[in-house]
């Protein structure tokens, strides 16, 4: 397995009115191809900042970031992002939203029919063939997030970046979409980095869990190998001793060693 995403001594400093604010510092992380890595930490620990850095949405203040051997210099479709608030364009249908991405990535190489097929495939992958021609405001929050995932996957990115993708959904929908994401990722074998604050989500979906210390100057505190066999089943794992142990480890990290002072 080769190193796919590589972060070395990554640092991000914001210039605020109160002076320099070191959000994250000294972050070293290597993600292998096909790996699913979660970044977990208390809110404000800079985990979203880290994801935005990998996405290229903001420049690093120090250190080096590589993706598939190339330096990350800005945003690009090889690192597709699933945004927390889905960020669908309200004037485009589900099809139109995904097609915009497909057209951008494959428009130069493929004809119209092929682009259309790709769009339809991406939507059927997340089970949305029936709602293809609906506008975002006509579908539920869970469905919107599926479109967001379909849009990201349709670009066939090298890495899929998920920024608390299920944070805005209710518990049942969230569980359903987690299962769905596991299935899709399993079938595609894609590399993914997900930011979350949900311990169960992290353990269930990931190969490794990156636990971040509290900011300011947050960094990686510990990395936990999950090592649960795939495919995973939510129900079977609930009673699995290893799963319970892993869950306990993450909780201990978050609530014992890096407990957050009441904000």
């Amino acid at each position: 397995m080769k190193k796919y995403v590589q972060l070395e001594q990554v640092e991000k400093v914001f210039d605020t009115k109160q002076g320099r604010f070191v959000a994250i510092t000294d972050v070293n992380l290597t993600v292998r191809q096909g790996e699913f890595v979660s970044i977990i930490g208390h809110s404000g620990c800079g985990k979203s900042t880290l994801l935005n850095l990998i996405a290229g949405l903001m420049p690093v203040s120090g250190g080096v970031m590589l993706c598939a051997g190339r330096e990350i210099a800005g945003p690009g479709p090889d690192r597709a992002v699933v945004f927390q608030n889905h960020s669908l364009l309200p004037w485009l249908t589900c099809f139109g939203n995904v097609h915009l991405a497909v057209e951008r990535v494959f428009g130069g190489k493929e004809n119209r029919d092929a682009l259309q097929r790709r769009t339809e495939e991406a939507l059927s992958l997340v089970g949305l063939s029936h709602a293809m021609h609906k506008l975002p405001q006509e579908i539920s929050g869970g469905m919107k997030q599926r479109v967001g995932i379909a849009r990201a996957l349709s670009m066939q990115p090298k890495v899929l970046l998920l920024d608390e993708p299920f944070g805005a959904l209710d518990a049942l929908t969230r569980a359903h979409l987690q299962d769905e994401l596991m299935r899709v990722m399993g079938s595609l074998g894609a590399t993914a980095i997900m930011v979350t604050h949900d311990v169960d989500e992290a353990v269930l979906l990931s190969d490794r869990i990156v636990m971040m210390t509290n900011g300011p100057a947050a960094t990686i505190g510990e990395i936990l190998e999950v090592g649960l066999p795939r495919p995973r089943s939510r129900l079977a794992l609930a009673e699995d001793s290893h799963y319970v142990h892993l869950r306990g480890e993450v909780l201990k990290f978050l609530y014992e060693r890096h407990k957050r002072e009441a904000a």
Partner: protein
Amino acid sequence: MSTVIAMKKSSIEPELQKESPSPDTISAATSIPAQPASAATATPSASGRSAERIRTALNVVIPPLLGLALFILAWAAVAQHGKTLPGPLKTWHEAVQLFSDPFYDHGPNDKGIGWNILRSLERVAMGFGMAALLGIPLGFMIGRFDFLNRMTAPVISILRPVSPLAWLPIGLLVLKEAQPAAIWVIFISSIWPMIINTAAGVSKVPQDYLNVARVLNLSEWKIFTKILFPAVLPYTLTGIRLSIGVAWLVIVAAEMLTGGVGLGFWVWDEWNNLNVEHIIIAIFVVGIIGLLLEQCLLLLAKRFEY
């Protein structure tokens, strides 16, 4: 049990309405029948519902009618008292006569009201159209490029508050003729809301949408057609609505000064003839056309709300 409760409710409900037809009880009553409808009380609730519908309709129609009636009454009273202003009835008769032949043509200074309206609309359309052609793209660029924004800000801030008619001499001087000068005044006074609203709209495009554009690495053209334009359209339409309002406001004054055929000149002409009925008719015509323009644009804006 539930049927009994439902029966009680529906039997109380019509009385409630009779006692106090305030908007509150009406809105409350509209929500209640949803419950008894499922029970075996279809007849009373159905008749109650149609009664409500009539009530709501009356509620919509009566206040504006009352307002108009009071206005006309006040006008009649003032006319009766002062003797200089023609009353509503006299004006109405004049209007009927005037509109029975709107498109007559007795030489350059005596044309039907229809011609006057059309000519005024034409000037507004030309001045406003040119303002839109220049102002909307300019607004987009100002909103998109900060440098341009800071560059144009002082000029716009200085020129925007200038009274429209102050531009007329410049127009007459440069364009040498009265007609283009009138259009120039419409142009220069109606361009600002479109520039400013469009620019504000561009700067208010949600960062989420722009992040999508950045992650997808969209071309500037795609960003414009797929994200900026649809996101800014509601703001631009507001700008257009304000601009048309200004243009229509200015046209009467501009035409009074430049002459030719048009509502403004007509008002001035009728003032010289001391035909006050026609002046009042002109005021109503200007008001009603302004209202129609506004409503058309509001309707259009509704189509593009997300």
